[in-house]
């Protein structure tokens, strides 16, 4: 049985058997279990992929670790579940995972008909096209008649259809569920181009047999705000995940890093005192320890550190901060006030 059917069935089972009343309290469940279960991609370098020692690395992975640090004060109390695009939403709905950090785009239907809630965006992305240089294509508008590799069950699949429809071009999708199989098919020449979020295309290219043979076309055809996701109906858990992402961003804005967070505990700034729990209150109102933000920053780092470590200029992906810079630097990363 394919893995997809397994997940779909698990949704059915959970929907069929769990009793209707006990819905909320993901926090209690996670605490009782002793670790957080996070759904991740598993195949995208820079976002979530195990390194050669088997340690999970990536921006999404670190976001999930921050949630574990907030809940337990220990970023290591976490288990990762690798999910395909098709599996991810059913896995969350069926409670196989507590939080989904898997480059998932926030959309209206996912929040409504799928019954999910998106926390603050942890990566602003857009969809592009990766293509072999030797085809000589300079613009996505020249892709008429092209065969395009695309992951099923993604907004990407829909955006591509919209793009070709809008520009009245014919195309042929090749839809393969496993990221690795899809990459293999593309680099072997089964498709003329590969379409996905540009960050993922960069990741694909970085592991290609000969990365320099491929280029990204200039067009960005969609907005892809990627954010951690939780189930509808548990507001406390949503708040925890949402404010964890904001804490990462706020820490960068405050200039708090994993290196100087202990120094910052002595800060005289009342905002920083509240943020790090020197002045108690914020953590309690989330149902957490008041030192939650301290643990996050101490163990995982702030958003800027996470970005630089996984996808920034020093990494093979070498992505610029762009939209993902702080609002004070002209980006979109903007946390609501911690008070």
């Amino acid at each position, binding site marked *: 049985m*394919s893995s*997809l*059917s397994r997940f*779909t*069935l698990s*949704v*059915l089972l*959970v*929907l*069929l*058997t*769990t*009793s*209707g009343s006990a*819905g909320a309290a993901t926090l209690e469940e996670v605490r009782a279990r002793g670790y957080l279960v996070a759904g991740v991609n598993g195949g995208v370098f820079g976002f979530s992929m195990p390194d050669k020692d088997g340690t999970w690395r990536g921006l999404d992975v670190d976001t999930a670790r921050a949630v574990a640090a907030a809940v337990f004060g220990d970023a290591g109390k976490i288990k990762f579940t690798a999910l395909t*695009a*098709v599996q991810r*939403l*059913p896995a969350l*709905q069926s409670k196989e995972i507590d939080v989904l950090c898997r480059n998932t785009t926030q959309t209206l*239907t*996912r929040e*409504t*008909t*799928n*019954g999910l809630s998106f926390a603050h965006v942890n990566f602003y992305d857009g969809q592009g096209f990766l293509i072999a240089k030797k*085809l000589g294509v300079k613009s996505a508008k020249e*892709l*008429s*008649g*092209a*065969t395009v590799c695309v992951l*099923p*069950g993604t907004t990407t*699949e*829909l955006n*591509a*259809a*919209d793009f*070709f*429809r809008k520009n009245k071009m014919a*195309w*042929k*999708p*090749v*839809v*393969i*569920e*496993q990221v690795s*199989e899809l990459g*293999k*098919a593309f680099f*072997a*020449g*089964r498709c*003329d181009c590969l379409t996905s979020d540009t960050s993922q295309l960069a990741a694909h290219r970085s592991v290609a047999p000969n990365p320099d043979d491929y280029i990204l076309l200039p067009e960005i055809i969609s907005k892809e705000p990627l954010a951690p996701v939780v*189930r*509808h*109906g548990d507001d406390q858990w949503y708040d925890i995940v949402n404010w964890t992402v904001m804490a990462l961003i706020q820490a960068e804005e405050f200039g708090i890093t994993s290196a100087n967070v202990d120094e910052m505990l002595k800060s005289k700034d009342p905002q920083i005192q509240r943020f790090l729990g020197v002045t108690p209150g914020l953590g309690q109102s989330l149902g957490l320890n008041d030192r939650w933000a301290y643990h996050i920053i101490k163990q995982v780092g702030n958003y800027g550190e996470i970005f630089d470590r996984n996808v920034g200029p020093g990494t093979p992906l070498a992505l610029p901060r762009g939209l993902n810079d702080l609002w004070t630097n002209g980006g979109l990363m903007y946390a609501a006030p911690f008070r």
Partner: protein
Amino acid sequence: MPDRPPAANQAQAGRTAFWLEPGKRAILYQGALLCLLGLLAYYLISNTLTNLERQSIATGWGFLDKEAAFEVGESVIPYSAADTYGRALIVGALNTLKVALIGMAMTLVLGTLIGVARLSTNWLVSKLAAGYIELMQNIPVLLQLFFWYAIFYEALPSPREALHPLRGLFLCNRGVVFAVPQPHPAHKYMLAALFAGVVLVYLLQRWVRARQARSGRGFPLGTVGAGILVGLPALVWLAFGAPRGMNVPELAGFNFQGGVTWSPEFIALLLGLVLYTAAFVAEIVRAGIQAVGKGQQEAALSIGLRRRQVLHLVILPQALRVIIPPLTSQMLNLTKNSSLAVAIGFPDFVSVANTTINQTGQAIEGVALIMLVYLMFSLTTSAFMNWYNRKTRLIER
């Protein structure tokens, strides 16, 4: 007591409690079981609805009329992203049907050939067939699919350097592209002529059989039948002035335009399913033939029947009776295994339904549809095979 009058018997029966009477007790038990099942169903359904409501997941069949907004790689009927989910699902179902029907036909032919080869008196042929069967039966079909798919995109060149073994035929990593005749009004009539030919051959065969039973005289039915089947459409074709326009594929931009393309996904799926299932069919055919006693064959030969007649008149009628039931389940397997298409990206029903489930979030409706469609395919296949089984059953006196 044997001499007790019947009335007394009844009176005693009347005294027994009704739940101790076998008939009534059975009804009681079954009633109780039914109630339990009903309660369970009620519990599951109401629970599901509450859960869906609580997680605010949409329910109902309304999504079938909404715009699908995703593209499907290949389709037998016109389809675009502007069509509805309902139509996308029909496209998927037809793709599954296409693979299943072509696959079944090819499997039957290949399986029979290998099964007969397995019994050949030629040592090499028999061992080759045995080797094939062992190899194919013992490698999981999913691996075989990956293998054929990888062969396609790894070994074949890009469209611009496509292999070109024959005029109008191209092989590349976009699939097999071949020329087809230009649409022409004659084709409709040629098809009609073919049907007429089939009816004619059927009638001829009945006449030949009756005549042979009456007089013992044979008739070259094979040659004449083939002549009629090919000849009639050919005559119609000539009558229309022999239209020879071909729709030849040509490289335009990224890919071939014109002609017909069989995608690597489709071919890999078809190859994988056919080669795998044919191994099982071959064994079934061999078993069926061996189930007919050797004496039967020898007896038939000794009364002067030719080898072909022995096969047709003595062996096959008895072998089919053994072959058909297990063959049915192999045909069903082939249809069900076609859902592995998801792994190599052929847009079969499961693949389209998965995308639909994912985009709409309506897993329960989607899975129900998948079950319904496969149930329908399977029941139709087995109904047909059962009908054929009854037809070929040995009529014993």
